C-alpha cells in the first residue's frame, strides 16, 4: 500500500518535472500555429462579415458567407476549385514523374557532366521566375496563335510550365532517397537479365512510394500556392482563375468589404488540403529526412 503511494507520488513528480512544461509550451505553439486558421473559420461563419467587429465565437453565426460566395456569378468559386484541382493534380503528377526519371538516372548512372547537371538544376531554380513572367507571357501568347489549346487562358501550357520546374529540389530529394536503396539489388537484377527500365519500374518505384507521396503532396501544395505566373498565363477572366488567383483578386485591398466570403472560400480551399496532409503526415517525417540525409 505504502509502496503504491510511493510509486504514485513518484509518478506525479515525474509528470510535473518532465511532462507539464512540455504541455505548456505545446499549448503556446498550438495557439500560434492554429491562429490564422481559427480566425479564418470564425470569420467564415460570422454573418456580420466584418473584420473590425469579428469575435472568436461569432455572435451571429450562419452560412450567409457561403451562400454569398456560391451565388456570385462573376466570381464562380466552384469553377475556380475545379480549375485548381485539374491543374494541381496533373502538374504535380508531371513534376513527380519527370523528377523521378531524372533522379533515377542521376542516382544510378555514371556519366560525364553528372555533377554539373546536379549543380545546374539547383542553381537555375534560383532565378526569380516571376521576372520571367513577361517572357513566359510572350511565349505562350505566340504558341497560342498557332495552337489555340497551348495559348493564353488554357491550362495545358501552365501544366507544362510547372513541369519545367520539376528538376530542382524535388529531384535532389528523390535522388537522395534512391541513393539509400542498395545498388546490390540492381546488380542482382541485371544479372537476372532485367533492363534499366525494369529495374526502375519493378524495383525502385515500389520501394520509393512513400517518398513519391511526400513529393507529390508538396508539389500539389506548391502549385496551389502559385498565383503570379498562373494569373499571367490564365488571365483574369473569372472562369479561368484558380482558387489562389481568384481569392487573391477578391480580397486584395478590400478587407472591409469582402472579408466574410473570402474567409468562407479560404476555409473551403484549406480543408481538403489539410485533410490530405493529416492523412499522409506519417510519410512526411520519414520522406523528408530520408531524402535529405544522403543529399
Amino acid at each position: 500500500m505504502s509502496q503504491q503511494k510511493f510509486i504514485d507520488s513518484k509518478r506525479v513528480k515525474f509528470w510535473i518535472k518532465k511532462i507539464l512544461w512540455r504541455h505548456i509550451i505545446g499549448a503556446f505553439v498550438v495557439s500560434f500555429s492554429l491562429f490564422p486558421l481559427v480566425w479564418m473559420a470564425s470569420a467564415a461563419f460570422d454573418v456580420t462579415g466584418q473584420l473590425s467587429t469579428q469575435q472568436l465565437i461569432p455572435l451571429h453565426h450562419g452560412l450567409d458567407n457561403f451562400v454569398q460566395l456560391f451565388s456570385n456569378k462573376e466570381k464562380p468559386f466552384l469553377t475556380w476549385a475545379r480549375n485548381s484541382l485539374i491543374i494541381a493534380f496533373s502538374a504535380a503528377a508531371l513534376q513527380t514523374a519527370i523528377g523521378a526519371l531524372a533522379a533515377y538516372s542521376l542516382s544510378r548512372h555514371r556519366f560525364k557532366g553528372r555533377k554539373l547537371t546536379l549543380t545546374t538544376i539547383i542553381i537555375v531554380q534560383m532565378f526569380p521566375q516571376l521576372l520571367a513572367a513577361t517572357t513566359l507571357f510572350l511565349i505562350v501568347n505566340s504558341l497560342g496563335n498557332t495552337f489555340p489549346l497551348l495559348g493564353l487562358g488554357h491550362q495545358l501550357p501552365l501544366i507544362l510550365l510547372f513541369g519545367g520546374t520539376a528538376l530542382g529540389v524535388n529531384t535532389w530529394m528523390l535522388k537522395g532517397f534512391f541513393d539509400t536503396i542498395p545498388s546490390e539489388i540492381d546488380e542482382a537484377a541485371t544479372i537476372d537479365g532485367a533492363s534499366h527500365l525494369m529495374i526502375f519500374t519493378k524495383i525502385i518505384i515500389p520501394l520509393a512510394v512513400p517518398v513519391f507521396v511526400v513529393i507529390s503532396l508538396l508539389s500539389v501544395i506548391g502549385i496551389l500556392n502559385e498565383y503570379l505566373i498562373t494569373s499571367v498565363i490564365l488571365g483574369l477572366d473569372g472562369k479561368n482563375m484558380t482558387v489562389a488567383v481568384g481569392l487573391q483578386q477578391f480580397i486584395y485591398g478590400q478587407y472591409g468589404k469582402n472579408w466574410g466570403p473570402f474567409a468562407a472560400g479560404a476555409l473551403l480551399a484549406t480543408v481538403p488540403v489539410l485533410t490530405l496532409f493529416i492523412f499522409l503526415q506519417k510519410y512526411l517525417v520519414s520522406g523528408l529526412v530520408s531524402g535529405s540525409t544522403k543529399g
Partner: protein
Amino acid sequence: MRIREFVAHKSKFILSYSFVLLLLIMGARLLQDRSWFLGIFAFISAILIFYVYCIARKVPLKYLLPGVLLLIFFQIYPAVYSGYVAFTNDSNGHQLSKTQAVNAIIDDSLIPVDGIEPISYVVAKVEATKSLVVIFQYPAGTYWAGNSQLLRRLKLSQLEREPDGRVKQASGYVVFNSEQSAAYANELQNIRIKIDDSTSLQPVDIDLMEAFQPSFKYSEIGDILTDLNSGQVYSPNDNGQMVSASGEVLYPGWKVNVGWRNFSSIISDEEVKRPLLAVLLWTFVNAFLVVVLSFLMGLSLALVFNFQHLRSRRFYRTIFIMPMAIPSVLSVLVWAGLFGTETGVIDRLFHISTPWLTDNLWARVAVLIVELWLAFPYMFLICTGAIQAIPNEILEAAEIDGASPLKSFRLIKLPLVMRTIAPLLVSSGAMALNNFGAIYLLTGGGPVFSNSNGNAGATDILISYTYKLAFNSQEGNNYGLASALSILNFILVGAISVYGLRKMKTMEGVN
C-alpha cells in the same frame, strides 16, 4: 511471353517516333506562322528525342531529357531573355521596334487636309463577310465601299440613291440607317481609308469623314523625321528617340541596346541607389533572421516533443505542421487582415493599438512573425526526422560514460543533426532571399519610403522591389532596369548558395 516482350519493345519505338512526328508537324506550323524561335525549338527537340531514344541509346539521357527540355523552354530561355532585356532600355514608351515607333509618331500627327471638304458616308456591312464598311462618294459621282483593310469601287448600277446622292441600298451590302449606325461608333472611330500615299479618310462624326494627312514625313536617307509644317528636323539619339536639334523629343521611342547603362545606373543613379541600400540590407537581415529563428524554434520543439513518455506527442506534431498544409497565399492574406491596426483581431485581442502595417519597424516585425509561422513547421519536421535517425546506442553509450543531457546534446545530437540538415538550411536561406509572396501579399513592401518614388518600402526585399519596378511602377514600368536587378539578385543568391553548399561539403559529398 516472347510476344509480349516484342510488343513492349516495339511500342517504345512507336511512342518515340510518333512524338518526334508530332513535334516536327508543330515546328512546321510554327515556322509557317513566323514564330521562328518556337519553331526552331520544336525541330531541335524532335532531333534530340530521335537521337536519344532511337539512335544513340544513351541510357542516362533517356531519363533526363523530358525534364531538361521543359527546363530549357520554360526556365532557362526566359532567364536568358531577361539577360538580353537587361542590356536594353525596354520600358514604357520604349517597347516598339524603330519602324513601329516611327509609324506611330506619323500616325499620331494627322491633321485635316485644307483642300478637301468633309465627305458624308453611310455605314454598311458586306453581306458575304459581315465586315463593317463605310460607303461614300469621292470625288462626286464615284462611289466606294471601304474600311482600313479594303477599298472597293462600286458600280452605279449596284446602287439605289436618294435625290441628294446619298446611298439608300447597295447590292451585296446591308446598309444601316443612322440609328443603327450609332451602335458602331467605336468601330467607326478606328477606320482609316487610304486614298493615296499620304492622305487618309477618317470618320469624324456618325455620317461625316474628313481627309487627314500626317504632318511628319520620314526619310530613310539620313534617317530623319521632318515636321512638314515647321520644317523642324528630328534625328534618332542613342536612347531610341527622335530628337530635334533643340532637344525636343518625340514619343513613343523604341527599344535599343544601351550596353551596361542599366547596371551602372544601379551604382550611380541616386534615385535607384538610395532605396536600394536599405532594400539590400533588409533582404539579408530578413533572410538571416527567418532562417535562424525558424531553425531554433524547429530544433527546440523537436527536442522537447521527441520525448517517449509524452503520449500526446503525435497530436502536437500534427498541429505544429499544419501551417505547411494551408495554401500560403490564403494564410498570408488572412494574416494581413488580422494585422490591421485597431480593427485587426490581433490588436483587439491584446488591447493594443500597434501600427503593424504602417510603421517601418512594426511592419518588419509583422513580416517576420508571418514568415516564422510559415517556416518553422518544416524546420520542426526535418529536425524531428534527423533526431530520430540518431542511433540510440550512441546516446546510451554517452549516458553510461556520464555525459550530462546538455553535453550529449552539444557534442552528439547537434553535430549529427547539423550534418543532415545543413544543406536544407542553405536552400531555405536561398528561398528566404527570394520570398516574394509573403512580403508582397502582406505589406506590398510598404510602408513606402518617401524618397523612392513609391517603388521601395521598409519591408521590400530585392525581388519585390524589382517586381514593382517591372510591373507596378507609378512612373512607368522599367523592364530593362528590373531585368538588370533580377540578374544581380540571381548572381547574389546563386553565389551565396553555392558558397554555402561548398562550405557544408555537400558538393564534395555528392556521389
